């Protein structure tokens, strides 16, 4: 067997995260929330530090800080701040604050690298259960709200006229994002979570004619990148999280080239 037991667990963890990240990542791309995803993910380091100080579970700490960050950013967004500046400030200060806070935690030796870049090979059975529970929760939310989310993404007035509250849909995305960050922390680490959201979705775009096909393809590319990256990291003896993201980036590059070479697809990607 090529796969030892921990590799199987790692692969399953990667697939779980990739499946949940695919539809959510599509919304992040469609709604131009890439930086928003970054800010939410970077807040996770602060969550790790806080949960070490308060000796609560890391999952809970990360969920709470990510959610808080996402909520703060969405509530500040409508108040005249330039969004990219605001997000730049929030994302990096959360990361810096988290790193400072971690250094204050005395008596506990923590492997900071594992939180920054993930430690997929150390995924235990309990971690795997949590990852899949989180992934199922996010997939369930996406499936349940899919049409409303799409309508609200297209145009908030169209949504209102159909009796959909875009604010509530935004909240669902925010919540899902926090959950994905919390469960992906172990797999790719805070620095690369946004990559796992955005790259597979962007890779799927040139081959998609409908939102649904884009989400499905993104799931396929995401799952392919995580399992392939895991395999590659095993052979090349490279860090796993970054290898996964590198493979995703390679797929994106190939997809863009393929998109350029196919005239019919070109027509659909250009405005």
């Amino acid at each position, binding site marked *: 067997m090529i796969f030892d037991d921990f590799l199987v667990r790692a692969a399953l963890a990667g697939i779980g995260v990739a499946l949940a990240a695919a539809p959510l990542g599509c919304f992040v*791309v*469609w*709604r*131009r929330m890439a930086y928003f995803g970054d800010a939410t993910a970077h807040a996770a380091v602060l969550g790790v530090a806080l949960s070490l100080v308060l000796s609560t579970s890391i999952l809970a700490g990360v969920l709470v800080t990510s959610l808080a960050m996402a909520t703060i950013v969405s509530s500040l967004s409508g108040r005249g701040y330039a969004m990219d500046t605001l997000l730049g400030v929030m994302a990096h200060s959360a990361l810096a604050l988290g790193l400072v806070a971690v250094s204050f935690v005395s008596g506990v030796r923590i492997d900071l690298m594992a939180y920054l870049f993930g430690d997929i090979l150390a995924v235990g059975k309990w971690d795997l259960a949590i990852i899949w529970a989180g992934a199922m929760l996010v997939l369930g939310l996406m499936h349940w709200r899919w*049409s*409303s989310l*799409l*309508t609200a*993404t*297209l*145009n*908030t*007035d*169209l*949504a*209102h*006229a*159909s*009796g*959909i509250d875009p604010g509530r849909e935004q909240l669902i995305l925010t919540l899902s994002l926090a959950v994905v960050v919390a469960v992906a922390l172990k797999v790719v680490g805070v620095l690369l979570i946004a990559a796992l959201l955005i790259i597979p979705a*962007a890779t799927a*775009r040139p081959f*998609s*004619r*409908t*939102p*649904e*096909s*884009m989400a499905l393809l993104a799931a396929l590319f995401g799952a392919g990148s995580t399992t392939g990256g895991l395999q590659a990291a095993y052979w090349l003896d490279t860090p796993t999280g970054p290898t996964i993201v590198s493979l995703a980036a390679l797929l994106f590059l190939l997809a863009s080239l393929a998109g350029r070479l196919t005239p019919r697809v070109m*027509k*659909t*990607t*250009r*405005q």
Partner: protein
Amino acid sequence: MTLLTIENLAVDLGGQPILDNIHLALERGEIVTIVGPNGSGKTTLLKAIIGSLTPACGQIQRAPGLILGYVPQRLHLDPTLPMTVKRFMGLPRQHSRACIAQALERAGAAGLGQQQMSSLSGGQFQRILLARALLESPDLLILDEATQGLDQQGVIDFYRQLEAVRHELGCGVLMVSHELHVVMSTSDRVVCLNRSICCEGTPERVAASPAYHAMFGQGVQDALAVYRHDHHPRQALREPA
């Protein structure tokens, strides 16, 4: 049958009063057009009616079970979002293939179902928006400058479709428009808005009112007097003023 009653409506945006003391009732089967200068609160009024803005005071009462069809001023579609016409028509609720084909036909956009939204021309795009609004067989159709960016022929065709749809569905129509000539020939009632309602009534009455003069000037008034009784907007627009 009254579809919508607005009483004493006021809307503020960013601390600025945009609408004040609005009273308006809409009946089934009538076409009501809102006219007014830029910044007079036309779009704000429509947004308050569809529920995307919260009034500062006053009430908007819908008839029980009222179905709204809404055609926005412009719809920006992010290029990263792939969307066929057919899929767009099914948002937020799926409809049968036959229903979609029928709505496209009604809006004058038959055969566009498989196209990407991003590949449509401006005129086709507006027709698709109209078709989507018609899918649910609305009781009240709300259009916000739905013909913006269309050429003359496009505008004429659009209003012709609209009139046909009104007869077919028997719905009420509330629209904002800048095409004063067409407005006057297709509307049952015109509402002049400038923060509050300055005057309203049949196109003739509004065209004769001093408030309307003050708002749009004499030139428009003359043009309307000439064209009012021509029910074929195509001819009305073809003749030079």
